[in-house]
């Protein structure tokens, strides 16, 4: 190995035909990550002077990233579809023999989509937080963590290799940990943060192993390299691809709170609400979907792994929806909904080329409406003394008009009200789920359709319990509308919730993504097993049913302030289907047993072994010393015995 010249961050030409070297704004794409990272570092290191202005600096830097992203988008649109992907090499990161990895950025349609989603929603939430966190003594730290999150998330989506992606991947996990535990003097919150991080680590275990498997199989871990190798190897490397697929899925499950690693997301609502909106609804939790779509060449040749993705998605979306029906905590209900919606995306991603683009599409629209609703929930809490129990809300529409209106937009969008964002994106997934042969379209299609109805029910329940029906406030509640710094972002997101789906649909978003996601054109060749109008109609019917049922039970009827016992299903759902208990039984109990056994073994086994040698020597010494009894004749006897033995030995040898 020879010394490599230490390459400074420069745009170096990538010898890759499909991915052009970075030009123009892409040459400084590193600013995307660098700006918020600098903000985080600055706010954490310079303490007292920035207590006041720090949040504003952070917000400005976040918007700065958005501007960079927007310019990137404009430039990208200006190029021909084949030449849109660009690659930027930053510096030699890990030059290790056969594994020589540069840190670099891959700026293509997919990453730019994410960049814009993250920076736009993220910046809005920065603004919102200026109001929401105005009275928190630690807000400087809060904004530092937010900036850290934005930087890590941008690194995740712009990384040109899975390993760099992994850096961002754990970086967002760290930011999530820090923000969930932001109020960690409350012990359950601290536990929630730990739980999130550790569950994510289990997922990371999978992602890490997947990267290792990629290197062992393909000799590379760059995204483009793995893509090409997977395509070139095709079914020859089927087993390894399946293994990699499963491992990636494990990673995705951890980050995106998919079954069976979903339990942390509900607890993660312990963090401040803007955090829930940004990290645990709009961006970070969708990283799993990003990962699966990014790695689609792997799944293309690993049908079993792809099917597993679909099944995981189906299970999670159903489970999330049912849990959503049973939660009285507004944020936890939204969290369940997030799980369910990401389940949709995962399912779509697992469907193969038919679904990749739809998954991303839904991801983007979901980012807007779910973030909007979370901010709405935050606004409600702001007005209701930071309480979250919806049973003590009700009838807030009059007092918080803007919040109500923006939440309304979000609600309509998520239930798939025609021509709002969710309608376009979710219906596409339902349609795609009906594509295929054999049992799959029926199972997945019907699941998605039924859950669409369920979604309408629980979201309506949430909406009605909070904003409509009787006022069930506590005595000293004085609901009021939030300041403009909070409402303006909500309004903007509401606009997005309403219009983004249509705009993107009309703007050819799916075709735009096609070069990266392998073309949604596949949908054209594969007709759903049911006619599309039937699917759409059936879905809308189920949605209407769900809304109606919710209206009857949670608007017209009185909602008891204390939750009724409910059926076993409600109880199970309210307890997240005993996920914590299962985890406890399957992981915590054996884990504790391992810890105790190992500690015991160490204290009494291994350590005693070492000491035992010492004791044995001492014992031997004491016993031997008894021969030294002080009698000179006994010494003479010892000598004589020695002589006799020696002579006997000689005699035996001689004869």
């Amino acid at each position: 190995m020879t010394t490599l010249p230490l390459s400074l961050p420069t745009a170096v030409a990538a010898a890759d035909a499909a991915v052009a070297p970075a030009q123009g704004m892409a040459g400084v794409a590193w600013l995307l990550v660098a700006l918020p990272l600098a903000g985080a570092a600055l706010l954490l290191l310079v303490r007292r002077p920035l207590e006041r202005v720090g949040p504003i600096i952070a917000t400005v830097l976040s918007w700065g990233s958005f501007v960079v992203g927007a310019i990137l988008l404009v430039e990208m649109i200006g190029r021909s579809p084949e030449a849109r992907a660009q690659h930027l090499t930053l510096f030699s990161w890990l030059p290790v023999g056969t594994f020589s990895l540069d840190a670099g950025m891959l700026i293509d349609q997919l990453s730019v989509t994410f960049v814009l989603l993250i920076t736009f929603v993220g910046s809005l939430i920065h603004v919102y937080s200026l109001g929401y966190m105005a009275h928190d003594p630690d807000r400087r730290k809060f904004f530092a963590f937010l900036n850290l999150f934005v930087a890590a998330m941008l690194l995740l989506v712009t990384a040109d290799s899975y390993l760099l992606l992994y850096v961002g991947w754990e970086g967002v996990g760290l930011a999530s940990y820090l923000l969930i535990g932001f109020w960690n003097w409350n012990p359950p919150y601290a536990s929630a943060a730990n739980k999130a991080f550790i569950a994510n680590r289990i997922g990371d275990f999978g992602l890490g192993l997947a990267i290792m498997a990629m290197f062992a199989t393909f000799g590379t871990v760059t995204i483009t390299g793995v893509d090409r190798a997977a395509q070139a190897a095709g079914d020859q490397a089927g087993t390894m691809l399946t293994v990699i697929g499963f491992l990636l899925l494990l990673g995705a499950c951890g980050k995106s709170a998919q079954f069976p690693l979903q339990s942390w997301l509900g607890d993660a609502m312990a963090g401040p609400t803007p955090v829930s909106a940004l990290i645990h609804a709009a961006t970070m939790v969708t990283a799993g979907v990003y990962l699966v779509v990014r790695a689609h060449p792997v799944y293309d040749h690993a049908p079993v792994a792809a099917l597993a993705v679909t099944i995981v998605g189906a299970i999670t979306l159903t489970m999330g929806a049912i849990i959503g029906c049973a939660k009285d905590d507004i944020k936890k209900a939204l969290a369940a909904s997030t799980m369910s919606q990401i389940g949709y995306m995962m399912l779509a991603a697992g469907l193969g080329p038919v679904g990749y683009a739809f998954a991303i599409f839904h991801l983007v629209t979901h980012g807007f409406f779910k973030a909007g609703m979370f901010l709405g929930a935050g606004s409600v809490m702001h007005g209701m003394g930071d309480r979250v129990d919806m049973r003590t809300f009700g009838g807030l529409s009059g007092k918080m008009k803007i919040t109500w209106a923006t939440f309304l937009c979000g609600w309509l969008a998520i239930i798939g009200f025609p021509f709002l964002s969710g309608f376009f994106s979710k219906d596409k997934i339902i349609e795609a789920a009906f594509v295929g042969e054999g049992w799959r379209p029926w199972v997945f299609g019907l699941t998605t359709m039924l859950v669409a109805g369920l979604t309408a029910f629980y979201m309506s329940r949430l909406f009605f319990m909070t904003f409509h029906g009787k006022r069930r406030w506590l005595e000293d509640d004085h609901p009021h509308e939030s300041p403009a710094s909070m409402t303006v972002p909500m309004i903007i997101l509401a606009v997005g919730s309403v219009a983004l789906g249509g705009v993107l649909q009309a703007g050819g978003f799916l075709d735009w993504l096609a070069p990266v996601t392998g073309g949604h054109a596949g949908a054209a060749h594969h007709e759903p097993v049911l006619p599309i109008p039937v699917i759409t109609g059936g879905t809308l019917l189920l949605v209407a049913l769900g809304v109606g049922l919710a209206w009857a039970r949670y608007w017209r009827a009185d909602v008891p302030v204390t939750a009724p016992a409910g059926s076993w299903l409600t109880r199970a759902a309210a307890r997240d289907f005993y996920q914590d208990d299962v985890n406890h039984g399957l992981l915590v109990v054996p884990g504790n047993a391992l810890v105790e056994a190992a500690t015991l073994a160490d204290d009494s086994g291994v350590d005693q072994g070492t000491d035992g040698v010492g004791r044995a020597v001492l014992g031997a010494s004491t016993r031997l010393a008894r021969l030294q009894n002080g009698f000179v004749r006994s010494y003479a006897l010892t000598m004589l015995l020695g002589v006799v033995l020696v002579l006997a030995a000689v005699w035996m040898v001689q004869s």
Partner: protein
Amino acid sequence: MSLMNYVYLAIVLFAIGAATVLVRRNAIIVFMGIELMLNAVNLAFVTFARMNGSLDGQAVALFVMVVAAAEVVVGLAIIMTIHRSRRSASVDDANLLKL
């Protein structure tokens, strides 16, 4: 009569001397056992000198006698002091140093 019988006699005397050292308690007797061993060796030397036809062995016997005499001087002195201090010449009574 073979000369080897003298050697055997020497060995027997040597063994008797060694046994004396082991079984008797009185320091003087123990010491006599040692003297017996030395003289047994003298017998062996003289015998071997005869067998080998050289005078070296006989010369050695003379040396050994001298050395034994010197040993007696030193030995009796030591035994005397210890007898004065302890009023006992038993080797088993000198038993403070042990373990």
